[in-house]
């Protein structure tokens, strides 16, 4: 088939489509056309990424050189099943979020800024896909910088005092993270002489006995640098402000996709550039495991203490990113595969949670949790979708949250650390403590439901359709958990 033979160039084509079309938007006067371009390009990217995925599953991973020079001199993309699957996830979730934004974004940001918003979103998704696909560390750094600036942009676009404060905090902390990441690259380059991950893997085997400390330093710099950006526990302080003050569409994008891009980059550097056997001997994975476990517990504890519903969900992201780091820290193939699966599960679930909460805040105009008592009668579909997301977060069977917790528990037992199962259990119970009150007070209670009119504030089904699609995606990701986890453990080899 011609389309499948061309599929090798599709990852690059996706990036080009997204990044070039982004700059058409400020030239267009009509906001409807801007929205059409944005959604259309994202759908094209989504279709292309699915074709790439089919090609990779059939023919195995491949390397695609960019431009006219081969690897050590030129740049290349490395597409394994893992990268292809993450590409599918990013483009489809971003597409659904953009579809939701068609109806709600104008209520949150001024209409003359709409073209710039969609410009930033396209650049952001393009840069994130660049991080995922690229096999060259410095190229990844450039994409990291682009995505940082674009994600600060989609926070600050609301132009209120709290947004500017949150975005400045985010900008300063993530610039610190990029700086550390760049220093990590410099250390690694100085001992291996390469920026291409495949070649670093070859060189580092010889270098590890000569320069063990340099490797340790660079790995720590990578972990802390990318940890700041992906909200690893003690470095998460920018996240609640940025995610809670941004427009709900931005929060969904930031929480479900942007955090994940940097985690994927860390996984690629640790396990592809340096390799399992080398990283296992370093103390870094233990550090990641401890910080991940701390994040799982403390993120949930902080979430319980919050009063605004968006801040609760933002702190919940800290806890969920903790699960991903926990999986990486287990230092087994199953652990990392489950971490990648959790990237999948959390991305769809958190996007759904932020969009439903955005719909609730939009129709009621309130932000506090206590104001949402009895909302289940007014907005049954919205709160129903929220409930599905909450159940997945807490870990009810079939849903992705359960699958990743179950497999993380299995992985921690097989890694010889059964005590960690207790941390997973405690974290699940804490998750239930802050998600279930919203649902219970929303649906039940005599006093809560008094004077509420059934479906009085419900948004039209047309506007909630993207969120319903996301809920189907949540169920789907839960159902195909087994093949996905197998795919990821294949992709890391």
């Amino acid at each position, binding site marked *: 088939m011609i389309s499948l033979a061309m599929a090798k160039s599709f990852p690059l084509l996706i990036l080009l489509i997204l990044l070039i079309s982004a*700059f058409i938007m400020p*030239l267009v006067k009509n906001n409807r056309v801007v929205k059409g371009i944005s959604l259309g390009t994202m759908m094209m990217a989504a279709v292309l990424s699915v074709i790439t995925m089919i090609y990779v599953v059939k023919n195995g991973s491949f390397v695609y050189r960019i431009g006219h020079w081969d690897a050590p001199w030129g740049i290349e993309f490395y597409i394994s099943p893992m990268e292809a699957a993450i590409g599918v996830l990013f483009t489809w979730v971003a597409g659904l979020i953009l579809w939701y934004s068609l109806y709600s974004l104008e209520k949150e940001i001024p209409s003359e800024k709409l073209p710039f918003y969609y410009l930033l979103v396209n650049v952001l998704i393009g840069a994130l896909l660049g991080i995922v696909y690229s096999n060259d560390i410095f190229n990844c750094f450039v994409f990291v910088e682009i995505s940082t600036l674009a994600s600060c942009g989609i926070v600050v676009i609301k132009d209120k005092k709290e947004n500017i404060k949150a975005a400045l905090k985010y900008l300063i902390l993530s610039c610190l993270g990029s700086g550390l990441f760049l220093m990590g690259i410099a250390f690694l380059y100085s001992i291996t002489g390469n920026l291409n991950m495949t070649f670093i893997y070859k060189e580092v085997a010889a270098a590890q006995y000569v320069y063990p400390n340099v490797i340790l330093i660079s790995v720590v710099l990578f972990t802390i640098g990318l940890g700041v950006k992906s909200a690893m526990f003690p470095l998460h302080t920018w996240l609640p402000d940025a995610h809670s003050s941004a427009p709900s569409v931005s929060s969904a994008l930031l929480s479900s996709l942007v955090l994940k891009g940097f985690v994927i980059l860390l996984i690629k550097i640790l396990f592809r550039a340096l390799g399992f056997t080398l990283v296992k001997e370093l103390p870094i994975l233990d550090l990641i495991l401890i910080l991940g476990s701390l994040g799982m517990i403390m993120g949930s504890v902080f979430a319980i203490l919050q009063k605004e519903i968006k801040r609760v969900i933002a702190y919940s992201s800290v806890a969920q990113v903790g699960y991903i780091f926990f999986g990486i820290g287990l230092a087994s193939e199953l652990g990392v595969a489950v971490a990648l699966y959790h990237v999948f599960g959390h991305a769809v679930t958190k996007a759904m949670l932020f969009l439903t909460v955005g719909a609730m805040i939009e129709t009621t105009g309130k932000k506090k949790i206590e104001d949402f008592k009895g909302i289940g009668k007014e907005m049954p579909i919205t709160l129903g979708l929220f409930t599905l997301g909450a159940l997945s977060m807490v870990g009810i069977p079939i849903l992705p949250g359960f699958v990743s917790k179950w497999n993380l528990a299995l992985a921690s037992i097989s890694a010889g650390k059964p005590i960690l199962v207790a941390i997973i259990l405690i974290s699940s119970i804490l998750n239930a403590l802050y998600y279930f009150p919203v649902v219970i007070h929303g649906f039940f209670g005599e006093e809560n439901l008094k004077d509420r009119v059934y479906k009085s504030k419900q948004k039209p089904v047309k506007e909630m359709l993207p969120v319903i699609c996301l809920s189907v995606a949540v169920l789907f990701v839960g159902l195909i958990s087994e093949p996905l986890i197998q795919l990821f453990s294949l992709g890391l080899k």
Partner: protein
Amino acid sequence: MNHMILQVVSKIMIPFIQVFGIYVVLFGHLSPGGGFAGGTILGVSLIFYRMVYGKAETRLKFPFELMMKMMCGALILYGVLKGYSFLTGGNHSYLPQLPLGTPGNILSGGYLLPLNVLVGITVTVTIYFLFTLFYEGEI
């Protein structure tokens, strides 16, 4: 800054700054310099003009819409040109590329000259926007 001496001096200086900027952009592939350096120099000339003649007059000469169109057009063209080069190289398809020319001529170096010009336009507008946003808060 409505000052007679400044205005007279700047009338003499700005053309020279701009010619030098254009020179740095166009000779970027042959000598030190290039799109970024030359674009910065061109952007400085616009900043100079703005500081001396004020907001209203600069807006007449360099309106926001025009600058935005130039910048976005340059970025799109850059993406299309370089994307074509990337795709043909990656697919090993031997489609026509820009000729390399004789080394030393201005029209040589394949993609370097047009890309330098496009970078120059983008950097000019960005530098000008950055300055005005920090200086007066609006463009």
